[in-house]
């Protein structure tokens, strides 16, 4: 329950500028997810907030206090790591109490905090085991517990779930979300898994090369990605992109690729004047509809069908480019089959080819 303000943060390792003039304001109790490809500086930013890296320039405020030069332990933060980072030679109880003993809290207080955290995380029966005797999910719970007992205002998570298998990941995801609703702490959560980002975040900061590309709530990020990078990075199966240019069809602006024209009426954004400008149209697979050939749709050829259980992803050739559509399974489409496509312009995104920005 503290704000975090990051002002003009710069961090370089030698000649390598990892973070460049980064600004970020996090409200009290907010759940912020830092999302981005590997090496974009997410962990670096998190470590700066935690005080584990010395910043090269700029300031960090936590709860209104300038903590730029403070020790990690004095910043009121708890941190959870991808590799759990449990102390292997201590029992779970030892792991939980280590930080508290360092603070010289009274024994009773320590006991009580551990009991509470163990209850919240349902790890009571594990308290006397060593980390080696725990499963991955249990370890991660203990790691969270270690942050929990410290009674801090800010939780920092560095890819806490990446080492777990898909099933556990989705379970713990829900637990973390529930934990946040319960504690109402400020949380900063690093991941490169977009599902985690979308499901957990109040706001997502999509990063690339040390710069925040877009900072917004999940729906906005998903539906109105600010540029090509964000659009391609978010969404799985990912957005299909079609190269083309703007024309006008019957007065209204339209997108033209090859010899096909897609009307853009109702596009949620400022479509540029129909000046032949080179643009890229991005459509998410779930917004593409497939009809029978010739029934008014745009002509395409089925390429490959990927059944994914709950849905099926159909890859098609469309005007010489590849495009995917999500359909219900068992649609009976065979490779090579001709189909008619439909787009919903209100849910598509249009990007400038040069600047890669969304209109």
């Amino acid at each position, binding site marked *: 329950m503290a704000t975090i303000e990051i002002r003009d943060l710069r961090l370089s390792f030698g000649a390598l500028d990892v973070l460049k003039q980064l600004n970020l304001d996090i409200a009290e109790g907010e759940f912020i997810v830092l999302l981005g490809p590997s090496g974009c500086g997410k962990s670096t930013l998190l*470590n700066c907030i*935690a005080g584990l890296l010395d910043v090269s320039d700029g300031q960090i405020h936590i709860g209104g206090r300038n903590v730029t030069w403070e020790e*990690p*332990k004095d910043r009121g933060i708890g*941190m959870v790591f991808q590799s759990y*980072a449990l*102390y292997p030679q201590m029992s779970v109880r030892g792991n939980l109490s*280590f*930080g508290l003993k*360092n603070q010289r809290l009274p024994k009773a207080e320590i006991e009580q905090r551990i009991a509470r955290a163990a209850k919240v995380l349902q790890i009571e029966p594990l308290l006397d085991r060593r980390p080696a005797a725990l499963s991955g999910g249990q370890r991660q719970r203990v790691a969270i517990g270690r942050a929990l007992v410290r009674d801090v205002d800010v939780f920092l998570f560095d890819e806490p779930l990446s080492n777990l298998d898909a099933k556990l990941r989705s379970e713990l995801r829900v637990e973390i979300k529930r934990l946040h609703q319960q504690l109402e702490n400020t949380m900063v959560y690093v991941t490169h898994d977009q599902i985690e980002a979308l499901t957990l975040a109040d706001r997502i900061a999509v990063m690339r090369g040390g710069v925040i590309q877009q900072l917004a709530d999940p729906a906005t990020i998903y539906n109105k990605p600010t540029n090509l990078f964000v659009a391609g990075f978010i969404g799985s199966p990912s957005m299909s992109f079609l190269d083309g240019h703007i024309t006008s069809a019957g007065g209204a602006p339209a997108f033209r690729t090859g010899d096909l024209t897609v009307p853009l009426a109702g596009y949620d954004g400022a479509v540029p004047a129909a000046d032949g400008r080179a643009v890229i149209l991005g459509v998410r697979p779930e917004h593409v509809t497939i009809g029978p050939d010739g029934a008014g749709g745009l002509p395409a050829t089925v390429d490959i069908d990927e059944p994914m259980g709950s849905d099926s992803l159909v890859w098609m050739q469309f005007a010489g480019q590849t495009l995917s559509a999500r359909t219900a399974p068992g649609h009976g489409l065979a490779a090579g089959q001709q189909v008619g496509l439909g787009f919903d312009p209100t849910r598509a995104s249009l990007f400038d080819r040069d600047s890669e920005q969304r209109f």
Partner: protein
Amino acid sequence: MVGADAVAGRLDGPTGPRPRRALSRRNVILYGTLIVIALYYLLPLYVMVVTSLKGMPEIRLGNIFSPPVEVTFQPWVKAWSEACTGLNCDGLSRGFWNSVRILIPSVVLSIAIASVNGYALANWRFKGADVFFTILIIGAFIPYQVMIYPIVILLREIGLYGSLTGLVIVHSIFGMPILTLLFRNYFTSVPEELFKAARVDGAGFWGIYFRIMLPMSLPIFVVAIILQVTGIWNDFLFGVVYTRPDVYPMTVQLNNIVNSVQGVKEYNVNMAATILTGLVPLVVYFFSGKLFVRGIAAGAVKG
């Protein structure tokens, strides 16, 4: 065939594990080579043991490889407690205890210093640390001869020349580079997140060292201890240059006994003395060789 029904429904032909002849050509070559080489490595030990158990007359007959006809432990007794150097005739026994007195503080001190150094270098980099470390590593390769003399002067200036403390310091100094390297590599391989977690938990430099790092570095400590025990125990040069005769270590005593030729060379006594001197490191190796290899893999060799 009794079990024919049980395997009904199976196809014919190769089933189950590939048949392996114990004496396949590969095995013959492999084990043959190994055994031959092992014999070569064992030969000197065998010669030492056998010779040390023979009497002088038998040795003069000349075959060093033949087993003793008449086993005598006299040479061992002599080497341990009777052999003379000059006027001192108490054999190796005195040197043994001297060696122990030198060994224990040297090993403890050098490992303590080196492990803290390695830890500081791996986890608490500060400006210039790498420079000092590089110097240290290069220093490991400077021939001792270059430094014997100035160190005599240094020790004299701080008044520790000839004392046991002085020797302990010398051992710690010369053990430092390799041990620091070992520890640094090992601690670098400990996940950094563990260290970060401990810092967030409010543990300081020493807290992390004692509570987190130490308990998980057994393998590398084993390597360090083995290296130091054998190195210090086997040391001759420092023992002889930096101490006085009443605290000479066992190797110096050995050299004295072996080189104090009284009439004929008593090879059996020499061999017994040699084995006795090598016994401590040998025992250490025989019992912890496995840990040594594992520790080397963890600390010395990085892919």
